[in-house]
């Protein structure tokens, strides 16, 4: 057993342990934050180091390949960014910082395990690991008198439990028809079995947990409520990290079905269309920015599903690309939300007023983020969407593609509204927004990343393509 194969997971486990140890001692916000930032940065480096590792572990239940490593890298970067972005942690009780980081690290560990799992039960375990951590983290919010974070947590827990239950139910069916829990085995057997209703049903039910994670219709209900209820920083994590892993698993699992699984694709197409439409329509009338981003992420889940259901390398690469881009765009928005929020409270559209004056860089970050989410070139959102649409159209999903582009047009309204609020309005309080240098650097880096990734997607897409060669 090559130790380096398991290095990222191990590292993040250790990271969690470090914070566990820290939580035992005297709480110190600055120390915790510093250590978290440092260790997460080291994590990114470590993951990058093992990017080219290949191998299998745990009796073939665990596979390290480029696909998983890329996801791990993105996840680690995401983790770093979330930690970086949430340095202020305005919404949290200072005493909980070390615990907070511990659970995040655990959840990340779970996500990393998840992307490498190639056996159904392993997947289940990894999923639970990542989820349970989050269940605990979500109600961490020091909103005096408010119970909204608890409500959010309960929703997340219950819906998560339901989704997991459904997944298990589905897995049992799959195991029932295929007599194996190994993905590699399943990949051999499933394409032939996809003609059977029971296999399809089981398969779709098995995907439910990832629908839940990705916030796809009909398991999207938690998303706006949880975003709204939890602290801004946690929301940033919830909005990005689990989705990366969910996409990875969706890709892995859907690939099992084989190219001939038209029924599965139909169901996925319906889900994609409904997700996009539902997310975008509901977002139109939101005023809470987190809620708005929540709905927006439902829609983006739908877009990503376009790539997933195209069942080809272009589509998969597009899905990976888009979800990675989504990480950047989404974090750009959450950065602004976090900075705008004075004491961890939720941010509404009205709070954006006069932002161009209060903090030009934050306004710019928000603007770029919003335009990117809207899919306006030359930002990453456009390029991702372009790839997704190409892939879907290549498979002949014309109607779905048209629904997607129309949704893009609809979605521009609320993104634009954010930009308008930030740029074209005046606030009563035009005092400068205190933004620390680090956040500025982050904002700037995100902008550059969004643009660069949009304009020069070449390397990333190629990498993603190579990665999925192993999956398909």
């Amino acid at each position, binding site marked *: 057993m090559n130790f380096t194969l398991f290095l990222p997971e191990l590292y993040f486990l250790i990271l969690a342990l470090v914070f566990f140890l820290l939580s035992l001692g005297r709480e110190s916000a600055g120390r915790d934050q510093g250590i978290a930032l440092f260790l997460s940065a080291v994590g990114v480096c470590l993951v990058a180091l093992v990017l080219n590792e290949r191998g299998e572990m745990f009796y073939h239940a665990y596979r390290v390949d480029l696909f998983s490593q890329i996801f791990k890298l993105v996840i680690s970067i995401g983790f770093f960014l979330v930690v970086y972005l949430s340095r202020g942690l305005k919404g949290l009780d200072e005493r909980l910082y070390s615990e907070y980081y511990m659970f995040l690290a655990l959840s990340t560990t779970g996500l990393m395990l998840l992307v490498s799992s190639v056996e159904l039960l392993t997947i289940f375990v990894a999923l639970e690991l990542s989820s349970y951590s989050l269940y605990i983290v979500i109600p961490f919010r020091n909103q005096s008198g408010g119970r909204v974070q608890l409500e959010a947590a309960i929703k997340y827990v219950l819906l998560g439990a339901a989704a997991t239950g459904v997944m298990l139910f589905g897995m049992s069916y799959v195991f029932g028809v295929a007599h194996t829990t190994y993905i590699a085995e399943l990949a051999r057997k499933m394409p032939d079995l996809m003609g059977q209703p029971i296999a399809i049903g089981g398969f779709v039910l098995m995907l439910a947990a990832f629908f839940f994670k990705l916030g796809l219709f009909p398991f999207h209900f938690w998303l706006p409520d949880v975003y709204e209820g939890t602290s801004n920083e946690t929301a940033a994590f919830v909005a990005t990290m689990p989705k990366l892993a969910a996409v990875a698993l969706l890709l892995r699992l859907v690939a099992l079905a084989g190219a001939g699984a038209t029924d599965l694709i139909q169901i996925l197409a319906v889900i994609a269309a409904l997700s996009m439409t539902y997310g975008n329509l509901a977002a139109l009338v939101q005023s809470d920015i987190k809620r708005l981003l929540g709905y927006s992420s439902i829609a983006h889940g739908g877009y990503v599903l376009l790539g997933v259901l195209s069942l080809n390398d272009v589509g998969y690469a597009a899905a990976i690309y888009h979800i990675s881009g989504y990480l950047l765009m989404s974090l750009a928005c959450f950065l602004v939300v976090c900075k705008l929020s004075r004491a961890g409270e939720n941010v509404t559209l009205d709070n954006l007023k006069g932002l*161009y004056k209060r903090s030009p860089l934050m306004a710019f970050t928000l603007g770029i983020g919003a335009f990117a989410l809207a899919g*306006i070139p*030359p930002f990453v959102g456009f390029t991702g969407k372009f790839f997704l649409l190409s892939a879907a*159209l290549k498979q002949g999903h014309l109607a779905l593609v048209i629904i997607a582009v*129309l949704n893009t*047009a609809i979605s*521009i309204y609320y993104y634009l509204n954010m930009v*308008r609020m930030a740029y*074209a309005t005046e606030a009563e309080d035009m005092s400068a927004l205190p933004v620390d240098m680090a956040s500025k650097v982050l904002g700037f880096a995100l902008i550059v990343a969004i643009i660069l990734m949009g304009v020069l997607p*070449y390397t990333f897409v190629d990498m993603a393509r190579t990665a999925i060669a192993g999956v398909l």
Partner: protein
Amino acid sequence: MEHFLSGNQLGYPILSILTFVPLIGALIMLVLRGDTVSRWWALLVTLTNAGLSLSLYANFDTSTFKYQFIEHHSWIPSLNINYTLGVDGISLLLVLLSTMIMPLCVLCSWTYIQKRVKEFMFSMLIMEAAMVGVFSALDFVLFYIFWEAMLIPMYLLIAIWGGPNKTYASFKFFLYTLAGSALLLVAIIALYLKTGTFSIPMLMEHSYPFAFQFWVFLAFALAFAIKVPMFPFHTWLPAAHVEAPTAGSVILASVLLKMGGYGFLRFCLPITPMASVHFMPLLLGISLASIIYGGYVALGQNDMKKLIAYSSVGHMGFVTLGIFVLNSQGIEGAILQMINHGITTGALFICVGTLYERTHSRMIADNSGIGKLMPIYITFFGVFSLSSLAFPGTNSFVGEFLVLIGAFLQNKVVGFVAIPGAILAAAYMLRLLQKIVWGERGPAPVFDLNAREIITLLPLMILVFWVGFVPGPFLEVTHASVARLLEQVQAGGGVPLGGLTLSRIWHMLCSLC
């Protein structure tokens, strides 16, 4: 590939320079401090770009239809997306128009824009980059990126520096045009999937089955029709024009609308020739409707900017009419008319803007009767108004006349139906002119144009007469490309001459339903 790309005769990447000079200028702008510095910097950058663009014209080879000043770099090889720039006779003038109009836009915003000057100039420079990019991109993805990217600065121009109803107008502008181009993206992808390339010249080389062309054409046409804008997709235009700041209106009128016409010429005709021929009656009908409808609505306006905005609908109707009569006179006239409309309508918006700076109203009634007070202004305004109504000897006449000739060559009925549009143009422009020059004047005194404003308008006036009397140099550059374009259409679909029979119209309508 060499047979339609002629390389770059300049030896340095002129088109990239034209695209990126404003972009870099914009980035440098971000570190500058102070309004005046921003203005001068923007002026410097735009003037530099305008100066640089002259070398395009100077070195353009009119004898060939091939794309010139080519730059070709691989961009996203996995999808065969390339960074290809190049101009031919169709796009050259539009590139020049874009670079030439920008310094004037900067100048006319000199005092008009008092708040957030830096951001304004930043947006303007970004806009210029996108505009040059749109007209010189030879790769469909690149084209689409520039096409959409232009919306952002334009949106900001309207939403930030716009009039009282700016939110509505800017949203409408953005949503409408974006919705229009959404299907364009689908069509682009569909073409790619059919051919495996995004290279526009190569896409023209392929022939596609009719059913495919049919849908691609419709997707194209919707996007371009909204951009042009053609009746009944025009309502974003008056809203945007009225609320936009002067420079915004000028850019909208001078360049943005041209993108629609350019799209028809560059994509619809050569890529989907059969469908173009098939839909010719529909497009001609809509063009005629635009001409007449735009004229009528313009006649009913009391807001100067709205009037000019609706007049754009009419004028651009002539452009699409010229394009879809599918003969060289019509298309050359359409190209020239695009340039003319850019010059004239841009100038008219500048005129309205200068007046607005003085009276703070765009209503005709509030601005009437300034003839005595502002003789220089009236001279300019009069010339541009006359140009707008296609007075002989001004630029618009040549374009309109060519389009009419094209229309008459294609079908006499079409030609005659277009005529009321010309009458209406005379009606609303003369009405405007009469009221502005001679109406009842309130007591508020206004001052005549200052040197800056004269400098802004003078080049446009010179162009009005230059194109009006010596259109040769402007038409010359288009000959080869237009001839080639027609060859492509002819080869692909065959242009029926005078083919606008009732049965054809019926057939077309049936296919639509």
